[in-house]
């Protein structure tokens, strides 16, 4: 079944042959989509399938490289979110776009406030925002409340009201319910159903299968930047949907995994770790020589887990043990200290990993200055020896140790981030999506390196948004959903099917043999 409708009137929005590249990565490849009025259309796909890029194109945030968009058979292209909004496409983004220090009413009419005599007409603004809030089912939010005083779930409703204030014909919700409490989700659903009855077209991006089942009229599955299937909601089983989402091209070779060393005592473990509502009751163990993966959809608490272990978060509950003894780790400085020996390769190398204008030398020695110094003075000989070793070990391509790190390629920058921590010879290595945005060759070198470090006895905890990496690199994978570990996969159980279905937190029929 396809979504092509043989009605005489043109669909509200038709996207055809859309392509978009980011550098060498093809995010969308001749994708198409048809959006009809009065329908809720769900978009599914795993991490990196191209959903977000598609939405950003519709909302005027990025421009497509190829293809066309037809709004009621009229070709359109948007240069800014404001242009898209003026054409009737409003988007509620996952990352909030609200201004915390302004009031709810100010935020709702921020893009186009009502004016009188050149100044903002506060009475009209108040009226407008009350209407929009009521339409968003959030009539209990006071227009004068400051956004920063509202809890996250209320802010999300304000965000929806802000989109509705544009009187859009198409409303896009990108993971808009991920921050909401269950009772708020129910409210939002009632609102969305009413808006559908009013004739609005709603595009709904969510990873929550039960939400889609409850809400959507039709679904489109994306894979590798293309729409691979469209079907009427409820006509496919969960395992069929998972099947459609599978099928990435495997592009990297992985080093062989040795037999697991189960007998070793865990070097890192945590019990019942919790933090605000992002981490719930997490218990895990990592043994020396083991590469443990963290899987699941993006933003299910994996980053917070790594930050929590590394002493960045305040007010965590539960216990973290090193070599079986409970330790309180209150800062990255404490986490890296001798008896713990932890290192974290952060997600954003440009802000958290590197000091871009400084040299390769300075970056490489930063995390280990205490070890390279004698009486507080940096020992140049020792530093040089350590740098040479690291440049050779990781094959960092640089004109010299005194080149600014910002001048290196992305892959080599990432190697510097990793090498910086290896200088300390960490016993526990935490990695936060270390291969994002780097080339295939460097990726493979990093896989080899991780395996070698494990063989030398390091314990590795590795979050990746790339399922292939988890399958190819890890001895075990812990899958997180909504801040909890929902599944542990080991050895041969780590398959794309198992990863996707546990990431979506759905049961698929056991008969399916991958």
């Amino acid at each position: 079944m396809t979504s092509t409708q043989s009605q005489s009137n043109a669909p509200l929005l038709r996207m055809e042959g859309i392509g978009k590249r980011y550098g060498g990565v093809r995010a969308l490849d001749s994708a198409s989509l048809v959006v009809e009025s009065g329908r809720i259309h769900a978009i599914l796909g795993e991490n990196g399938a191209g959903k977000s890029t598609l939405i950003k194109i519709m909302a005027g945030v990025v421009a497509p490289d190829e293809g066309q968009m037809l709004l009621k058979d009229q070709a359109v292209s948007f240069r800014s979110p404001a242009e898209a909004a003026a054409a009737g496409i409003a988007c509620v983004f996952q990352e909030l776009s609200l201004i915390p220090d302004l009031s709810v009413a100010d935020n709702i009419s921020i893009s186009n406030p009502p004016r009188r005599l050149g100044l903002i007409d506060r009475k009209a603004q108040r009226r407008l925002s009350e209407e929009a809030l009521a339409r968003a089912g959030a009539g209990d939010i006071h227009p004068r409340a400051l956004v920063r005083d509202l809890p996250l779930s209320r802010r999300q409703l304000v965000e929806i009201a802000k989109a509705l204030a544009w009187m859009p014909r198409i409303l896009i919700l990108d993971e808009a319910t991920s921050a909401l409490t269950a009772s708020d989700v129910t409210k939002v659903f009632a609102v969305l159903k009413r808006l559908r009855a009013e004739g609005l077209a709603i595009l709904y991006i969510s990873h929550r299968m039960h939400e889609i089942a409850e809400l959507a009229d039709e679904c489109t599955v994306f894979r590798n930047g293309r729409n691979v299937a469209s079907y009427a909601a409820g006509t496919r089983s969960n395992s069929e949907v998972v099947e459609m989402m599978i099928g990435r091209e495997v592009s990297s070779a992985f080093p062989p995994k040795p037999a697991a060393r189960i007998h070793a005592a865990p070097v890192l473990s945590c019990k019942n770790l919790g933090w605000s509502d992002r981490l719930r009751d997490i218990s895990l163990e990592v043994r020396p020589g083991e590469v443990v993966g963290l899987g699941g959809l993006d933003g299910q608490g994996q980053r917070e887990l790594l930050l929590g272990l590394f002493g960045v978060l305040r007010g965590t509950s539960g216990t973290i043990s090193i070599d079986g003894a409970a330790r309180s780790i209150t800062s990255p400085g404490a986490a890296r200290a001798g008896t713990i020996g932890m290192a974290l390769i952060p997600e954003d190398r440009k802000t958290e990993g590197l000091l871009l204008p400084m040299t390769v030398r300075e970056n490489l020695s930063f995390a280990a200055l205490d070890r390279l110094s004698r009486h507080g003075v940096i020992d140049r000989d020792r530093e040089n020896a350590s740098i040479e070793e690291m440049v050779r070990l990781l094959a960092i391509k640089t004109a010299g140790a005194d080149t600014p790190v910002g001048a290196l390629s992305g892959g080599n920058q990432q190697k510097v981030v990793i090498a910086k921590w290896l200088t300390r010879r960490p016993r526990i290595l935490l990695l936060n999506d270390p291969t994002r945005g780097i080339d295939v060759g460097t990726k493979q070198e990093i896989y080899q390196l991780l395996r070698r470090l494990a063989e030398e006895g390091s314990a590795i905890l590795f979050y990746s948004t790339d399922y292939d990496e988890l399958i190819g690199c890890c001895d075990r994978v812990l899958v997180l959903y909504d801040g909890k570990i929902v599944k542990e996969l080991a050895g041969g159980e780590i398959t794309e099917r198992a990863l996707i279905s546990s990431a979506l937190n759905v049961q698929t029929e056991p008969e399916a043999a991958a």
Partner: protein
Amino acid sequence: MSEWRYWLNEQRGTLIGLAIFVLMFAVYIANHPAGLTANVAQTAANKGVLLAFVAMAQAMVVITAGIDLSVGMILVLTNCLASWIVVGTPMQTTAGVLGVLLAGTICGAINGLLVIKGRLQPIVATIATGAVYFGLALLLRPFPGGAVNEDLADAVTGRIFGIIPSSLVVMLVVVLLVWLPFRRSEIGRAAYAAGSAEAAAFMSGVPIRRAKLVAYTLAGLLAGVGGLFLTFFTYTGEAAYASGSGYTLWSIAAVVLGGVSLYGGRGSAVGAIFGAFAARTTGDMLFVFDVDPLWQPLLQGIVLLIAISIGAIGLLRVRNRLEWFR
């Protein structure tokens, strides 16, 4: 009832600034040998208003999450300029006043253009322009001197109906003509938005760059009003470097005392006015308590440190330590 609570919440910073000032002023008056006479009020108002204009200027820029370290030097430059041109017949004097205000506005616009078009960091850009403005002031007035239309000077620094300090009335007019329209306009809201969450403001299509330019320009205008006032107050022009840097420093202190967040997005110029009066009162208070002048700078510094610490209390609630650096 609930409306009122929201209003209170919006104005919290400003009201805290007002409370600090009222408290300090009450203590000051209670210990003043003469008590609250029209004369005491007039002197306090004149000194306070002078800093208040500079503090308002600073608040404009700080709201956009910037900073203007040249406000004190714009004050000195416009003071020197005023001591040349705000003289003569009423017509000439009026032209002179407009000329001084224009000069201040141009100084502010230059700051804004450097920060926005030149993409320089506000702190370095305004240190450099501040040095230039002082250099110009020195060329205008190598030695203290000059004159000002004394009728006008006496009128705006005197009293109306024998009790109301006319400087306060002038300040009120400036608030009504400059601050309120700014605050209520789309540009003003954009300034707050840019200071609060620049990326979110950009994504919402808010004119961030225009708002910042207007904020810096109006800051120059307000500092120019301050310079004009200094001339009315002293009848002369003087290119005093220490005085210029002192005004810049105290403008930042006043802004913080008045509840304007140095991180941007919060507070108001009205709060900065109260902050300025509170800051002035600290100085006067040390005087009535007969503190050794040698100790006054130290004590003022400590008071300032305490006030600024109060503003940082929010950081204690942060749960993700990475947010300290954002």
